[in-house]
């Protein structure tokens, strides 16, 4: 039992902190400090920078190009990343299709796609949800019909984050409608520039463009872009759901947000306003501490080689709820200062100027990636042995 980091880990932290200090680009740092989200250029510049260090794919096994860090090191890295004001890595390439490829992909697929992810050059998006297959993914309808050396894909995906940035999409498609729902699904890699593929923006309630609809009309996808065999799509999707995600709770970024909010309390009008804000923040900090130590435990367990269990859902549920509560606190503590929506010049404290947008944006975090209600259903089955 030891709640301190080892000396090696402390050294590691020091070196990462120093590197962050010297390397996080100023415009990105300022963007995060304002509470805004990076644009494509910033995001990609940052990921390429990490890629150039070999740090972007820190969760990957060394044989596929990971840096060989322990879960603790990855956790420390994430803390330093967040507190330096750098954005989290986009998950689609690094955390999702990458592990799928090195676990289920052919040698040719690995050679072709892994290096681009590792260097932050290829941007990916995830084609899962459909208009009538949101929470109920198994009912998806986008078809891929084998036609000689390629598939013809027809259908529609929705809620596709960053599809308008992406070079490639990994996609669940139905290759067989004669078998049980889950069995007829396959995992396909699709070039976003293929003719017949159309991306239409969906604007989110923060006023920004993150999401898209993607339409497929006779989109030709080479058969070598099938991962695993036909019908393995569901297995791969489930693999990803339980795949280790030591940073799923968002602890590092919540710390950053709470610290931003703390720094603005002095700008509040009266002593009472300040005291009430301090007390509200303290409540959030205590909850964050409980989340953080729970996260530490899963990190330590990962380093001992233990599989990620049901805690993973718990971290997601509590983490997203806390992110929402922090963003709500920021808006409400800001009060008047949070009301402006599109002015350049903040009213008073900078941090409140984007607070409402962030609050709006984060309403999605209890919905995407399996809503918290769905997470609880899954967890309940495990607990009750159903």
């Amino acid at each position: 039992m030891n709640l301190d980091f080892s000396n090696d880990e402390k050294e590691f932290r020091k070196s990462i902190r120093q590197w962050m200090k010297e390397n996080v680009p100023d415009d990105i740092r300022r963007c995060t400090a304002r509470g805004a989200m990076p644009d494509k250029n910033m995001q990609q510049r940052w990921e390429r920078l990490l890629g150039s260090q070999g740090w972007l794919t820190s969760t990957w096994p060394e044989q596929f190009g990971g840096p060989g860090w322990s879960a603790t090191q990855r956790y420390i890295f994430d803390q330093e990343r967040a507190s330096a004001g750098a954005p989290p890595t986009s998950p689609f390439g690094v955390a999702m299709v990458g592990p799928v490829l090195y676990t289920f992909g052919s040698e040719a697929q690995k050679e072709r796609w892994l290096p681009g992810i590792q260097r932050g050059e290829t941007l990916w998006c995830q084609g899962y949800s459909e208009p009538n297959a949101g929470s109920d993914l198994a009912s998806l309808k986008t078809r891929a019909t084998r036609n000689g050396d390629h598939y013809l894909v027809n259908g529609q995906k929705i809620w596709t984050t960053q599809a308008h940035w992406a070079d490639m999409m990994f996609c669940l498609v139905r290759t067989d409608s004669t078998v049980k729902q889950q069995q007829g699904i396959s995992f396909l890699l699709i070039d976003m520039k293929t003719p017949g593929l159309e991306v239409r923006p969906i604007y989110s309630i923060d006023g920004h463009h993150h999401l898209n609809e993607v339409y497929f009309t006779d989109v030709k996808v080479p058969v070598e872009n099938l991962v695993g065999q036909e019908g393995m799509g569901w297995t791969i999707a489930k693999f990803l759901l339980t795949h280790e995600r030591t940073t799923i709770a968002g602890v590092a970024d919540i710390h950053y947000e709470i610290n931003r909010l703390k720094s603005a309390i002095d700008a509040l009008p009266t002593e009472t306003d300040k005291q009430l804000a301090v007390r509200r923040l303290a409540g959030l900090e205590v909850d964050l501490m409980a989340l953080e130590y729970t996260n530490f435990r899963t990190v330590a367990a990962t380093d001992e080689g233990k599989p990620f269990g049901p805690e993973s859902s718990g971290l997601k549920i509590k983490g997203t709820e806390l992110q929402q509560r922090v963003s709500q606190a920021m808006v409400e503590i800001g009060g008047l200062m949070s009301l402006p929506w599109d002015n350049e010049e903040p009213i008073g404290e900078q941090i409140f100027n984007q607070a409402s947008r962030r609050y709006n944006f984060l309403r999605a975090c209890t919905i995407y990636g399996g809503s918290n209600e769905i997470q609880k259903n899954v967890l309940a089955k495990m607990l009750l042995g159903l």
Partner: protein
Amino acid sequence: MDFKLPENTTMIADTARRYLKDNYSFDSYIAQLNESNHLEANRWQAMNDLGWFGLPFAESVGGYGGSLLDVCAIVQELGAALCLDPFVDLIVSPGKLLEFANTPTSLALLDRIISGEARVACGLYDRHAGYHVLNPSLRLNGERLSGQKHVVSDGGVADAVLVSAMSGDELAIVALPFDACDVERYRLLDGSRAASLTLDDVLITDEMVLCRGDAAKQAVSAWFDYLCALDCARMYGACREVYQATLEYARTRKQFGTTIGSFQVIQHYLVDAFIDLQQLESMLLMVSVKGESANVCERGRATAAAKAYYANRAVGITQQGIQIHGGVGVTEELNIGHYFRLVTHASLSHGDREHHMSRFIQAGEKQNEVV
């Protein structure tokens, strides 16, 4: 006790609902969001024709003698329709302040608002004073006004503004032209238009000072309570729509081969929203009557309680509405997210929850003193 709306109020509400149904839609709202600093002349004239410009004000000052309850009935429908036409910002808000100030100059200006000639906004907030409207940071030194005003809800089109300022220890209300200030215009969280004003030793004349001292304090305090009640009415209208839409969505949206309304957890969410909506309606009825009570302490306690309650439960209903809608709930295409912004906005526009809890406590202490 009697909770039936007066026939007149019901008629006003029905008219407002019908008018908005015929003349406003989610598309109009989206169009209005994309406009800047523009007032839709036809709709503005229609509101005038409906008698809304005079409704909030006593007959003795040239109004049609409507009660706060009547005005709440309209504002509730504006909220339900997501309507951004600045009826509150350019008519009710400045008009009530002028009526409460009750001086010859203020009533003359009110007259021009009622007739539709004047476009006047209220600038009673600045970020240094926050919600503490009786202690603004704007200074009136002799004939010079200096300082800032923020979040001046002017619909983007006002040409005059009523500002509050401290003249020594004394509160003063001053009317001045917008172009006497440095103006920065922007959109607010609910999509409405506002401005920040910077006043750099602006020279004013004596007649621009509408009132001072206790008279000014009483006017601003009555205005604040009145506007708090309208915030609640607006949130109620929005919540009513969110609840109805969410119930309908739960009835029809299918997942896992069944409607999502067949899941017990969704059912309990809906029940919670239904019950909360009942209570929000009760609080609205309460504050619509007591928000203009002659008993200042009762009035303050009522508006503080209502706003504190709304900041909690009205916000909660819209958050849950989004959650039940899932993905589509977080898009600009659907109205649900816009209602969430409206409710969040209105929960903060005249005092947040903590501010009103503090007011509620103070009012309770004063009440005890009296008793």
